[in-house]
């Protein structure tokens, strides 16, 4: 996995970036220098592995106190213990369900609104400015208000995730629809397409790259929203585990939860990429399979 995979799991500005992918030309140059793709893959793992080894050594020789940074091996043992005898799996499940529900609720509302605004100038006039104004608020700044509305129960968590998910999907859906080549829409008219065919054959496929970009960004924000929401008054979930462990200075558990958040972020991003490759096989920047 390249560095780009990791950075994408951090919150980024919620706009569609140009779809050009990682630097292919320098990679090709390296290959000419004698490094095959396998060697490059191994090399890319060298630095992170080295970092873990250094941590382990520093912890083992006692240079770093265990409550500051636990040895990686200790974290692994804790993971095993919590998974077999503790609540780790149940907490993980709770977190995943929250993320999924929030993602589905926020995502579908935003997608529907995005379609509406993308198609109708009237809907745009009615909806778009308000959405853009709300978007200017860093959504985590709404946290106190959300707690007043929902308390610290499941509602608050799902609402926060949904809110975080909604903006990237809304923006990229409207953007995608706007950016569909007008020449292709004109072609649809020439070929005598009905409105329904026009949407299904030309507009949605044309907007899909942008929509999927929105999905990827929203996965990152969903995750961020969940971390924050779970840190506040949760009774279960990964965030709860972390807060609970903090009380007892169980740094190993805290680090474990951080690692889990990171892993799930990476998995979610990979899934989104897989979806892109599948749905955008035709696209020169995503496909490759169709060559």
């Amino acid at each position: 996995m390249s560095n780009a995979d990791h950075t994408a799991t951090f919150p980024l500005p919620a706009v569609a970036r140009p779809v050009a992918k990682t630097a292919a030309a320098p990679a090709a140059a390296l290959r000419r220098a004698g490094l095959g793709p396998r060697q490059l893959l191994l090399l890319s793992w060298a630095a992170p592995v080295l970092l873990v080894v250094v941590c382990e050594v520093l912890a083992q020789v006692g240079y770093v106190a265990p409550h500051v940074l636990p040895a990686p091996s200790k974290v692994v043992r804790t993971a095993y213990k919590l998974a077999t005898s503790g609540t780790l799996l149940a907490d993980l499940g709770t977190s995943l369900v929250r993320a999924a529900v929030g993602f589905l609720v926020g995502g579908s509302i935003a997608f529907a609104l995005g379609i509406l605004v993308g198609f109708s100038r009237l809907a745009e006039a009615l909806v778009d400015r308000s959405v853009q104004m709300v978007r200017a608020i860093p959504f985590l700044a709404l946290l106190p208000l959300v707690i007043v509305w929902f308390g610290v129960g499941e509602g608050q968590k799902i609402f926060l995730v949904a809110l975080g998910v909604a903006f990237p999907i809304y923006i990229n859906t409207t953007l995608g629809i706007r950016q569909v080549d007008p020449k292709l829409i004109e072609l649809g008219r020439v070929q005598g397409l009905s409105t329904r065919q026009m949407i299904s054959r030309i507009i949605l496929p044309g907007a899909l790259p942008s929509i999927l970009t929105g999905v990827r960004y929203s996965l990152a924000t969903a995750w961020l929203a969940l971390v924050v929401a779970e840190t506040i008054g949760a009774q279960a979930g990964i965030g709860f585990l972390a807060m609970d462990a903090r009380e007892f200075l169980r740094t190993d558990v805290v680090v474990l939860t951080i690692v889990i958040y990171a892993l799930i972020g990476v998995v979610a991003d990979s899934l989104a990429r897989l979806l892109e490759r599948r749905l955008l096989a035709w696209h020169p920047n995503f496909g490759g399979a169709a060559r």
Partner: protein
Amino acid sequence: MTAPALAEAKPAARVTDLTRAYGDRVVIDRLDLTIQRGEFVALLGESGCGKTTLLRALAGLDPIDGGRIEAPRRPAVVFQEHRLLPWDSLWRNVSLGLPERGARERAAAALEEVGLGGRLDDWPRNLSGGQAQRVALARALVQEPELLLLDEPFAALDALTRIRMHVLVKALVARHRPGVLLVTHDVEEAIALADRILVMRAGVIAAEHRPPAPGQPAADRATLLAELGVENDLSAA
């Protein structure tokens, strides 16, 4: 005019008194034009004289400011760019707008006709410029149009490919016999393909050429170039 075209009474398209203006700028000024069924008409004219405007009006893509257009409800159009949908396979592109039933078979037959029979499931991005334009041609002809409108469809192709396209288009038109309006910059192209050559200037058809006898070219190069305002034709010297 060729004999079969004379025999067909109702024209493929008839334009009377057509006027079209962009703001104060009158681009088409009371223009008359008739295209018979099965007739291949080429339209020449210097850049910006209103050829595309006329073609788009015939296609029903733009509103008009005056006059009358009698044309089939859905003429087929091939644009200068191929306008293939990048997300659809070639057969899906060709069958765009056809009823679902039998669409693949019809698309296959049309692709076969333009020499791309084996590539039904290929993507547009894997095509060369000439191949893409052939798919666009197949997409137009699969609709069995009464009127085929071509707006400089070969302008972006290299000279060799263009000549191959001329042969192909001529054969296809002879088989399907739509009325054709070909907008072009290329005098040679007009001479090679058309039954009738029109020159547009100042918003109207300023000159019209028919072959003096069947099988002969409608006009010679020097005459057309002179009418297009090209004074110093290097190759004629």
